[in-house]
């Protein structure tokens, strides 16, 4: 099997991992002067988008899809009969450089199945990146998956070499983890390494993210968001990704229903409210642990807390403006700038500032005057038709 054939198998095996971001404030240089290749940018660059709308910015690939683990949701689980293959570190580094030089990707996203044991595979992952950094003199973006149960020296080596490291939580806690995998201990294999990564974040200028599978273990949105908030606050995690569970044939979870993409979408919206809008978990509008299906969490919060509105656009502080549906951090900043010079007296003055007037007007007062219609906001939008997950999975079957 040649390197490209391996890439197709191991690239496809990594497609469920979410890794959209390549933005990072400073380039980690492993070479001096103009020697070397590659850089990172603060805004990130997308190199393509697949027909499902996901951005391709990184060469997403596994080092091997041979795996000792039995995770019930995973297409690469040990008991599954699929074509298995592995890259050698040198081989993968070479293939990646061809993609990078030709500008097909912004960097590498490297993960792996657990081939013999965690330690050996983790060493191979680190070796691959060492080859890229020191032999190919690559200064670009590398996102490295830390395998569950990796040792502290391995985590330190990974943090030193990568721009981002991540360890997938998959579930909010051990109770749910046990229903997905008998070989993973949530506290020992997931939380402990995540907390070890935190020690190296500033020392090596690396960021940390994680990923959840939504709906595979029967967890609620509250369980997930609560864990996410804890990870942001106590573990130095910068970003969480969510992947709606899709059943895969010949896995123990093949009969579990697919998770609607809408649920994934609501979790992302809530995550943004936590990270960028200053919301707290307890402010989010959960009903029986789930986020509302029909309206987004910010609008649901506003409708649930009508006593807080309307906010006076000429006086409200940033944090209050950010609770208004249709106003984001950028438009809120613009409002603050504009009102330093002018009294904002009518919605017309907001039309060029990026404010979504249709959503925000009901919740804003312009020197005491309110425009907008509450009824139209509460009306649920027609449900987006989602295709069935009952497809033959990938090319493996």
């Amino acid at each position, binding site marked *: 099997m040649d390197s490209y054939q391996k890439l197709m198998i191991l690239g496809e095996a990594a497609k469920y991992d979410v890794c959209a971001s390549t933005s990072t404030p400073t380039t980690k240089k492993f070479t001096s002067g103009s020697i070397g290749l590659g850089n990172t940018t603060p805004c990130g*660059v997308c190199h393509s988008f697949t027909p499902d709308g996901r951005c391709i910015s990184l060469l997403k690939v596994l080092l091997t899809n041979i795996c000792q683990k039995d995770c019930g949701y995973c297409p690469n689980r040990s008991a599954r009969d699929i074509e298995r293959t592995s890259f050698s570190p040198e081989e993968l580094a070479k293939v990646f450089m061809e993609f990078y030089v030709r500008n097909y990707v912004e960097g590498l996203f490297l993960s792996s199945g657990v081939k013999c044991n965690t330690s050996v595979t983790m060493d191979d992952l680190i070796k691959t990146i060492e080859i890229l950094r020191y032999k190919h003199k690559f200064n670009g973006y590398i996102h490295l998956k830390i395998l569950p149960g990796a040792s502290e020296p391995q985590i330190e080596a990974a943090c030193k070499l990568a721009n981002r490291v991540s360890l997938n939580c998959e579930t909010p806690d051990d109770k749910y983890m046990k229903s997905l995998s008998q070989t993973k201990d949530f506290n020992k294999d997931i939380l402990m390494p995540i907390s070890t990564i935190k020690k190296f974040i500033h020392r090596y200028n690396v960021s940390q993210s994680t990923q959840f599978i939504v709906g595979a273990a029967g967890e609620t949105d509250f369980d997930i968001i609560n864990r996410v908030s804890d990870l942001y606050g106590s573990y130095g995690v910068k970003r969480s990704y969510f992947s709606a569970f899709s059943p895969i044939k010949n896995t123990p979870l093949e009969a579990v229903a697919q998770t609607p993409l809408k649920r994934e979408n609501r979790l992302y919206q809530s995550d943004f409210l936590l990270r960028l809008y200053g919301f707290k978990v307890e402010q989010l509008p959960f009903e029986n642990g789930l986020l509302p299906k029909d309206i987004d969490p910010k609008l649901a919060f506003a409708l649930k807390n009508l006593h807080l509105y309307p906010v006076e656009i000429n006086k409200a502080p940033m944090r209050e403006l950010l609770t208004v549906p249709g106003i984001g951090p950028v438009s809120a900043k613009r409002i603050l700038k504009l009102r330093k010079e002018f009294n904002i007296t009518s919605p017309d003055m907001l039309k060029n500032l990026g404010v979504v007037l249709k959503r925000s007007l009901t919740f804003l007062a312009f020197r005491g005057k309110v425009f907008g219609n509450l009824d139209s906001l509460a009306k649920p939008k027609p449900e987006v038709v989602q295709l069935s997950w009952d497809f033959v999975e990938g090319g493996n079957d």
Partner: protein
Amino acid sequence: MYIFDDRVNSILKAGFLYAHTREFPVYEGETNSSLFTGMPTHVNTIAWEDILKLDLGFKNKKQELGRREVLSIIFFNLRHKDNSKYSLLVEGIKELTTMNSQTWLTGATDVSRKILNRKSDVGREIHKMVGYVRFVPFEDNFLVGTAPLEHNTADLILIRFRKRYPSHKLGLVIGKDICVLDNENNIFIEDATPYINLIEKDTFKDVWKEYYSRQYIEQRKNIKYVQRSIPKKYWNWLDEGSIIAEEANKKY
């Protein structure tokens, strides 16, 4: 009547004079088609100190407009394809002389919003091309790609690539010409014929298309979303565009 040219200094002067005289200056490229028949004065012949004397606030205002943020907006607007950019900029500078630049930069007026949008159009093209241009290695560390550009951005795109490729010579084929950024950071244009063949014959695109197809999760198909990021105008140019088009045409 004043005329001005496409240099930033000239546009700034024209804007200040317009604010003071209320007479709209004419872009020198448009003087032939204008109804103006008298002897125009080129703003470049008027010293800044004379312009700044016209109004008490002009001195501070000029310093305010000399900041990087405003200059970069003017610079990017000058790369925009629309020929009305010169008069729009003069209009914008006139507005800036009467209001706080920070307020103006929020896009609060129609003119400022239009100017900021045009800056975004140009910036977006550069940013998209930095992602979508595919290079083919040519002899001796020379990387060559193509780009379907709407605005005058080829050199800016190559400069953006410099950090990624610190020791490569880079070329961007635009029509029959190639814009080259050499190792000494000189930019020049030459005939693109030899490179066009090279790009057409490159087979790596097949590897990419196969990898790209394997990354697609069919159950999550969302063509509308893709189209927002990769507009249809790029589908014929990008290697993977045919796959997107095929998926878009599939009916379930």
